[in-house]
């Protein structure tokens, strides 16, 4: 569904990603693991077209999205839940969701589905996004991305700074999306928070591909994780 093919990218002249290749199937959760600065967030920005690629390509469902201008990329069905949530502050919850709905012309039914996943947001529709609690903001960031009926979903540290009950809520939504056939690329520092839901794990080191293995292998032998991400 979502495929990165030998992607080189970076900020200005500082190259971060070096020949990175990844493949996420529909209905699969791929967890991208790596140390700070390994290039996880950069990978997501490169997929969204927010960083120009030096070479390589990003393909979504047969479309080479890396050839498109950045604002066209989400219109092909990539929902992005960025690190730090990055809601449109000053806009209400309803307006943030409206922007998500407009990306692919989703209707009211999609909004209702999304709000059924996050009933808390329904009560806060007219509240300004920045006045929500941390957990609610994460719900809104997730809901905003789901509003565009994504084929692929990128989640960058969705559990950062959240209490356990919120982490559980987010995790359940991710699992539901997988069941609906969405390709999910998940970046997470806290391995234990996501290992239980991931199907496969891809390691990334200094912007290069590391091993890719079934999550099952890591659940049984935790030492592999320590070798890649341990201090």
């Amino acid at each position, binding site marked *: 569904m979502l495929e990165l093919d030998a992607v080189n990218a970076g900020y200005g002249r500082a190259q971060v990603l070096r020949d990175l290749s990844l493949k996420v199937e529909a209905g699969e959760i791929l967890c991208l693991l790596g140390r700070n600065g390994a290039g996880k967030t950069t990978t997501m920005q490169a997929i969204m077209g*927010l960083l120009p690629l030096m070479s390589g390509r990003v393909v979504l469902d047969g479309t080479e999205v890396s050839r498109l201008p950045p604002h066209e990329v*989400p219109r092909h069905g990539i929902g*992005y839940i960025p690190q730090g949530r990055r809601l449109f502050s*000053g*806009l209400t919850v309803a*307006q943030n969701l409206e*922007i998500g709905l407009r990306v692919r012309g989703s209707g009211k039914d999609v909004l209702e589905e999304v709000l059924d996943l996050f009933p808390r947001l329904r009560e806060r529709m007219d509240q300004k996004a920045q006045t929500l609690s941390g957990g609610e903001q994460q719900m809104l960031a997730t809901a*905003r991305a789901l509003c*565009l009926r994504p084929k692929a979903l990128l989640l960058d540290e969705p559990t950062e700074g959240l209490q356990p009950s919120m982490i559980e809520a987010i995790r359940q939504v991710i699992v539901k999306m997988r069941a609906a056939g969405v390709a999910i690329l998940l970046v997470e520092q806290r391995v234990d928070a996501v290992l239980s839901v991931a199907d496969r794990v891809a390691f990334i080191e200094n912007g290069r591909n590391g091993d890719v293995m079934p999550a099952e292998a890591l659940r049984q032998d935790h030492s592999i994780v320590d070798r890649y991400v341990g201090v």
Partner: protein
Amino acid sequence: MELGPYILLASLEGAVTAAVLALTAVGLSLVFGVMRVVNIAHGEFFMLGAVIAWFVAQTVGGHPALGFVAALVIAPLVVGAIAAAADMTILKRIDYDPERTIVATIGLLYIIQQLTLMTYGPEARPVEAPFNQRLAIPWFEWGEEGFEFYFPWGLSTTTYKLAVIGAAGVVLVGVWLMMARTRIGLLMRATQADRDMALAFGIPVERVYALVFGIGAALAALAAVLIVPIQQAHYLMGADPLLLSFIVVIIGGLGSLPGTVVAAIFIGLSDGIISVFFSPTLAKILATLLVGLVLVFRPQGLFGTRAA
């Protein structure tokens, strides 16, 4: 005549200044807020509006109202189109880098100014107001028969000046409605909040930028069309509105539209009153001093929020 009527007269003159200033400054503030671009050429867009208004009024002829109404429509559209073109051909190519944008808009300032000098010439030319009745304003005093009204000599305004204040109010409400209620306003506010996320949610940021730059310049041009029957069009007339707009935008809070309007009314009125009672130079000195104080004690401006 006692002091009261003088203050009223000065306030009315100040209100006209405030109205025109509010429109110009809101244009500047909109551009800075959404695009984070400091547009030094803003005053030249104002001047272009006035000069184009003169050309249009000359071409149309007939009753002054015809030429004026035509100018009111054509000047903002033409100036907006020029600004949008400048955005797409210059600012976009330098990637809206803050320093290079300032240098580029300084360049734009001189290009527009000198081209106007070469074509329109160094003369100051008036545009006739569509209507201009003198209105005497009554004042009151406690006379022998108690409270009574009379018309002091010299205390008057014109219908056109009142119309300028009214028109500016209507346009400002229009800008507010556009930002708060329309689809394009929502896209502008989302772009202002987070440019990258706007892109990641399918907002064509480049087109939003060109539109915002065009609207900002068009507002300055509209303000100039309104003032040109009172002030005359001249190729150097952009300097004062630019300085005052920056003063207003800094005091009001960069990118805050309500703050800009409040500061414009405050600066416009105080400029009018101080100019009448003391001197225009003192008014500018005090306004600039206020900017200094605001920058020292409240850098985000009176109504601004700290950078997120």
